[in-house]
C-alpha cells in the first residue's frame, strides 16, 4: 500500500489525466446542476416573473460585504471566520505559485501569484476556520441538532487538500512525494465533490439570493438583510 501511495506512476496519473477528469467532472457537473435548477424554476411559476436585477444585486451586495446584514452583526465571530474561510478557500489555490507553475508547464499560461508567506498564512487561516466550524458543530447545540455525518465529511473534504498541501510544502513528513500525492488526490476529490454535495452552494448561493432579493424588493417592499 505504502509503495503504491508513493509510486511515481500514481504521481504522474494524479498530476496528469486525473486533473483532466477532476476538472471535467467539476465543470460539467456544475453546469448540469445549474441548468437543471434554472429549468426546474420554470415549473415554480413564481420565480421568474419577479426576478429583478437591481434587487438581486442589492441582496448579493449586502450578503457579500462583511457585516452587511443584520444577522452577520448578530454573529460577529461566525462572520469573521466565514469570510476569512471563503476568501482563503477560493483565492489561495488559484493564486498559489506552485499551482500556477503547473498551469504554465501544461498550457504556457501564468498569472500573478501570492507571496509565499501570505499563501502560507491563508492556508493556516482556512485550517483554523475548519477547526472552528467543526467545534461549532460539536458544541453549539443548535448546530449539533441539525448536523449529519455528511456535514463532518464536507469539512473533511475541504480541509484535507489544505492540510496535505501545507504539510507537503513544509516537508514536515518524511516522504515528500507521499504528501504531494495525497494533496493532489484530496484536491481532486474536493473539486469533483462540489457539484454533488452541499458544496454546490457556491453556485446556488447566487441563484437563491437573486430570487429572495427580488422577492423582497419587488413584491414585499422590504429588505432581506
Amino acid at each position, binding site marked *: 500500500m505504502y509503495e503504491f501511495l508513493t509510486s511515481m506512476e500514481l504521481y504522474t496519473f494524479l498530476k496528469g489525466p486525473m486533473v483532466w477528469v477532476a476538472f471535467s467532472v467539476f465543470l460539467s457537473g456544475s453546469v448540469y446542476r445549474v441548468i437543471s435548477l434554472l429549468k426546474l424554476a420554470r415549473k415554480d411559476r413564481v420565480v421568474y*416573473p419577479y426576478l429583478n436585477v437591481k434587487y438581486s444585486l442589492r441582496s448579493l451586495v449586502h450578503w457579500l460585504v462583511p457585516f452587511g446584514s443584520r444577522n452577520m452583526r448578530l454573529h460577529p465571530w461566525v462572520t469573521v471566520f466565514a469570510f476569512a474561510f471563503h476568501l482563503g478557500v477560493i483565492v489561495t489555490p488559484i493564486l498559489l505559485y506552485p499551482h500556477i507553475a503547473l498551469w504554465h508547464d501544461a498550457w504556457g499560461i501564468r498569472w500573478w501569484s501570492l507571496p509565499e508567506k501570505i499563501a502560507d498564512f491563508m492556508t493556516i487561516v482556512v485550517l483554523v476556520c475548519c477547526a472552528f466550524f467543526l467545534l461549532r458543530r460539536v458544541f453549539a447545540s443548535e448546530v449539533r441538532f441539525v448536523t449529519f455525518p455528511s456535514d463532518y465529511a464536507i469539512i473533511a473534504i475541504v480541509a484535507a487538500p489544505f492540510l496535505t498541501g501545507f504539510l507537503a510544502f513544509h516537508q514536515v513528513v518524511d516522504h515528500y512525494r507521499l504528501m504531494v500525492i495525497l494533496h493532489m488526490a484530496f484536491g481532486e476529490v474536493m473539486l469533483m465533490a462540489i457539484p454533488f454535495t452541499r458544496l454546490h452552494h457556491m453556485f446556488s448561493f447566487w441563484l437563491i439570493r437573486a430570487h429572495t432579493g427580488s422577492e423582497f424588493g419587488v413584491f414585499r417592499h422590504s429588505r*432581506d438583510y
Partner: protein
Amino acid sequence: MARMQRRTVADLGFDETIKNLSPDKIARTIRYVLEKEAAARLKAYVDTCIHCGLCNEACHFYVSYDRDPSYAPVAKVRQTIWDMIEKKGKVDPETVKTYARIGFTECNICRRCSMYCPFGIDIGYMMILVRRICGLLKVAPSYLQDQGYSHMYTYSQSWVAQDDWVDTVQFVEEELRMNIKNARIPLDKEGAEIMYSPHSLEAKFKTNLLANIAKIMNVARVDWTMPSFDGWDSTNQSMHLGDHETMGMVERMHFSAGFRLKVKKIVTSECGHSFRAAVYDGSRSLGWKEPPITYLQPTQLFFEFVRDGRIRIARKIEEPVTVQDPCSIVRNRGLGGMLRSVVKAACEDFREVDPCLEHNYCCAAGSGVINYGPPWKFLRMEGGRAKIRQLQATGAKIVIAPCHSCHKTIEEMIDYYKADMHVMFISELLVKTMEIPEDMRTPEGKGSDQ
C-alpha cells in the same frame, strides 16, 4: 431522531384523523406534493442548506423557548421535510402527526428566517409544503379545519350566511346613526371608489370594529360600499390549511365581488392574513403577479386619509404608544412606514420597538395559529414571549396592531404576562382621536368619544 420534549395536546384534528391514514396514502401524498407540486425552490433549499443554524435567532419560538434548538427554523425542516425525503414518504401516521404539529403549531410562516439565512432560504415556504401535505391528509388543528369547511360552504370563515351578514350591516348602521348624523353603510353601490371587505368576525361578535370603519369612511366622506352577496368576507383560512383549491376559490369570489360592483379598489379589514391571501398566496395561485384589482390594507387607506387631510386629528393620545408590525403587511408588503406615520399623527409620544419594521418579531399567532382554540393557547402565550418583552421594553402603554391575530394574541399576552398596556387597532385610534365635522355631530355623539 432525537426530538425535544413537547407537551401532549388533545386535538381531534390530529388524534382522530390519523386513524384514517394508511402508509400507502401517506407516501403517495408526500411524494405528490414534494415531487409533483414543489419544484426548484424546494430542491435548491434542501440541496443548499449547509446546516449552519444561523437562521435560529430569527425565530421567535426559538428565542421565546430559551434557545431550545428544536425550535430553530432549520430544525423544523430537519424534523419534517428532510425526514420525508430521507424516508421517501414511508412514515407511520404518528410521524404525520409530528409533522403536522411542527408545520401548523410551531411555525407562523412569518418568513423572518429567510432574512437571516445567508442564502435567503425560505423556510416558511417549506413549512407551507408541510401544511399542504398534512392538510391533504386532513391532519390539522380541528378549529382550523372547521374554518376551512366554512369557507367551502359559505365563503366566509365563521359560518356567517349571507342573510346574517345583511342583517348585521343594518343594525350596525342603525347604531352608527346615533353617533354620526345621517351616516350610511351603502351596500352594493356600483362604481363606488372603495369596496370595504370585513373580517367575518366583524359580522359576528366584533361588530364594533365594523362600526369604527363605517364611522371613519363617513367622516372622510369616501364613496364606499360593501357587497351584500358572497365575497364580502376577506378572510381565507384555507390558505393556512395548505388547501390551495379552496383558497383560490374564495379569493376569486372576493375579487369578483369587486369587479361586479365596478369599484376602483378593495380595502380589506385590519387583518394580516386576509391581506396576504389576497395580494400574495391567492393572487399567485390564480395566476396573477399582483392582485387583479388595486388591493389595500386599511393602514394604507388611513395613511392616505391623514396625509390628504380627509381625517383630521382633534386630540392626540398623550400616553406613550408603540406599534406591532404585522408580518403579513410589513415584512410582506412594507407598510411599516405608513403605520408609523398614522400613529405619529395621532399620538404625542411614539416609542419605536427594537427590532422594528421587517425585522420585527412575529406575534406567534400568525398563519392561523390564533384560531386553533383553547387547547393551543399556551403555544401563543409561550411562543410570544419574545414579542411581549420587546413591546414592554418600549415603556409604551398602548400598542397599535393593525391585524386581528396580533391584536388578539397581544391582548391575551398582556394578561398572561401581567403587562401594563393595551392594544388598539388603527381604526380604534382614529375613532378616538379624529375630529367629527360639525355637520355630522349628533346630540348623543359629540364627535370623538369623550
